[in-house]
């Protein structure tokens, strides 16, 4: 055999090996899941628990979690959506980068570029009253907000993020004038809240729980459609007469154009993972709310929130500001 022939053979083998794999032998190597937030955060930890359980349901299904933070999640999300669509690079898809950020204009992707695979669960939101706040329940807060337009200062985890847009949406629904105060991350905001430097803070049930238990903050209302077990005495906004709910979500997304069979394998695998009792119990221990939804329902939710957020962002005059 001439050297050229063997080279050619070797090359063909390489091409065959590197080409799109059939579902029968998917996955043959580790699957990368890009988390667009810092290591150690809620999404990162959820993804690592997911990776642990995923192994059980897929033969040779190793997931490598890759944290690519920055730009409020836009950098990592963009990387996941611009990856080669072979099923070996996926991403976690959250409300902020998918449904909110594209409206500001600074992202190089939109909802149309997303292949939704399966939703993992909710990030519920809770409004808490801070130290020395001039109110201690939902009604008192609303009275204060109406009597003092533009004075009620509500902290959030970052400008243009889900917590910020949520409180603007609430102000719109309740027809009050609030003053959102953006912080650099949730824990910085919570510290300011515990110190009484702001009046109220958009938080999550798990972050606020120890402080609510010690009495350092007062839960005002939960932004879901019904009360939750950890906060049996905290009403929803609807109970208080304001037609408003808001919840963030997360799940697994991929770039468009995956081979049909690979997509089907992934959808089944993540359904099995997210409904696994082991996964659910580990997540609940961490204070997460697990709920599986299939790709289509996940997409519908993202589109609904995207439209909702678009209106709020337009009202704020922030639409397309980063174009």
């Amino acid at each position, binding site marked *: 055999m001439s050297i050229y022939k063997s080279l050619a053979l070797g090359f063909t083998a390489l091409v065959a090996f590197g080409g799109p794999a059939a579902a029968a032998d998917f996955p043959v190597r580790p699957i990368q899941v890009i988390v667009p937030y*810092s*290591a*150690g*955060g*809620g999404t*990162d*930890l959820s993804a*690592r*628990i997911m990776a*642990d359980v995923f192994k059980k349901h897929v033969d040779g299904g190793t997931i490598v979690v890759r*944290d*690519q*933070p*920055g*730009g*409020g999640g*836009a*950098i990592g999300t*963009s990387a996941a959506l611009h990856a080669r669509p072979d099923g070996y690079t996926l991403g976690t898809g959250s409300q902020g980068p998918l449904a909110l950020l594209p409206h*500001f204009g*600074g*992202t*190089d992707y939109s909802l149309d570029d997303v292949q939704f695979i399966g939703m993992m669960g909710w990030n519920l939101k809770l409004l808490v009253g801070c*130290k020395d706040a001039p109110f201690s329940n939902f009604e008192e807060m609303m009275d204060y907000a109406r009597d003092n337009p533009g004075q009620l*200062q509500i902290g959030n985890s*970052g*400008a*243009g*993020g889900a917590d*910020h847009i949520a409180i603007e949406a609430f102000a719109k629904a309740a027809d009050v004038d609030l*003053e959102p*105060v*953006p*912080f*650099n*991350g949730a*824990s*910085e905001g*919570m*510290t*300011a809240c*515990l*110190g*009484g*430097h*702001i009046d109220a803070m958009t938080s999550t049930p*798990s972050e606020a*729980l*120890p*402080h609510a*238990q*010690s009495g*350092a903050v007062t839960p005002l209302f939960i932004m879901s459609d019904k009360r939750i077990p950890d906060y049996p005495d905290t009403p929803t906004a609807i109970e208080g007469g304001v037609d408003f709910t808001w919840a963030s979500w997360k799940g697994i997304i991929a770039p468009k154009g995956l081979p049909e069979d690979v997509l089907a394998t992934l959808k089944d695998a993540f359904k099995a993972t997210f409904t696994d009792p082991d996964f659910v119990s*580990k997540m609940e*221990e*961490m*204070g997460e709310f697990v709920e599986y939804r299939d790709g289509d329902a996940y997409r519908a939710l993202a589109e609904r929130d995207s439209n909702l957020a678009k209106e709020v962002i337009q009202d704020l005059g*922030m639409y397309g*500001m*980063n174009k």
Partner: protein
Amino acid sequence: MDILQYIAPVFSLEVMQVIALGTLGGMIIGALPGLTATMGVALLIPLTFGMEPVLGLNMLIGIYIGGIYGGCISSILLRTPGTPASAATCLDGYPLAQKGQAGKALAMATIASFVGGIFAAVVLATLAPQLAAIALKFGPAEYFALALFGLTIIASLSGDLVKGAIAGLLGVLISTFGADPISGTLRYTFGVSGFASGFAFTPALIGLFALSEVFVQIEKILVDRKADVVKVSGSWPSGKDLRSSVPALIRGSVIGTILGIVPGTGSGTASWIAYNETRRSSKTPELFGTGHMPGVAATESANNAVCAAALIPLLALGVPGDVVTAVMMGGLMIHGLAPGPVLFQTRPDIIIGMFAGTFQATIFMFIFGMLGIRLFSRILLIPKRLLVMSIVAFCFIGSFAINLNVVDLYTMVGFGVLGYGMQKFGFSQAALCIALILGPMAESNLRRGLLQTHDNLVDFLSGPITLVFLGLTVLSLAWPLIRGGLARRRAAAANTTQQRVLL
């Protein structure tokens, strides 16, 4: 006795092994540029899923303490800050190593880290609930005033005031790149989505200090072939070095502990402020920056004091003191343990176990550090032309590893060229670095505060802590003048006495 019953388990062989391993691993992570203590802790959290809480958490504490210490090794030997916390250690540690005193510098850094760490651990174990209240006193105004005070370091650190101010302002300007902290608008990203968060800090630092030094070394080697190997001698600081460093150790430990308690400031800020305060109160400020032992003692005692101190607000209030403890909080939550005053009552075993683990990790760090000095300093025996090449490789790997973002590599190279130019033309890289750390803190808090007070500057700046820091800021700027005045008066007085004696 209750306390003993909780401490005892922490001294079991199993726990001690895990803490020792964590500390050693942390030292390696810290010494490698780009792998920071934050990343080490975050990546190992999943390992703690299946562990007993005390075991898992103490491993994380070991990584944290080892990681912050480990940063000094590469700072001193290679001028490559292993973690941002050790950037200030480059200033005096690296010149010492270049003078052939790498062993001494490393020993001093190890002693300082130990002193700072133990001091803060004692404060943590005895005064945590009382001192934690400080953490909550800091609102936007206080942070702004603190950042402003920190920025005055630039004036005293840079020899040439005008060039120092230019470097500092350039740093503040660079720190405004990326998303606006209050409105979210993107600034100066030129449509590159990878820059949405501005220049990443660690890659910028690696470029500024390490890559620029590589350029300088290459230039030296080209000019003088003999400059290829650095001498390595002596691994114990002399009695004189130790004595002269005592005030620096005390200052570093206290400043590190206080700034560790204040959330969001971190070890980077603490080590710069400690360095500057030590220099300011020194009788020989001109020796700082040329390889002066107290310089190393101040920065390293401060950054390791921050470690234990940052646990104070985390455990006592459920408020993380810095980025690493924020990640550690995630580790606690996984075990269903929400830190805060309630945990003190419900799980004293965890709290006391973590206190004991902090002491243990600090002691292990000291032992491993001391044992390792001879080994570490042998790196300098590698001919420079080979060494610089591997440093270049590490600059790239480290900058990429931190966020896995390709634009961070451009950032690193850009800052390397900038740093080289600054060295050549006598601009202070330290000034730029301080501005990069404190610029964003000053900007976001000023704007947040003005938003809250509806643009009323008087309302914003009238708190007592704010006024103290503003006073210190003025004092710090006026200090060179005051000192000059005092010196002249003393000289004049001395003159008159002399004249009297002569008469």
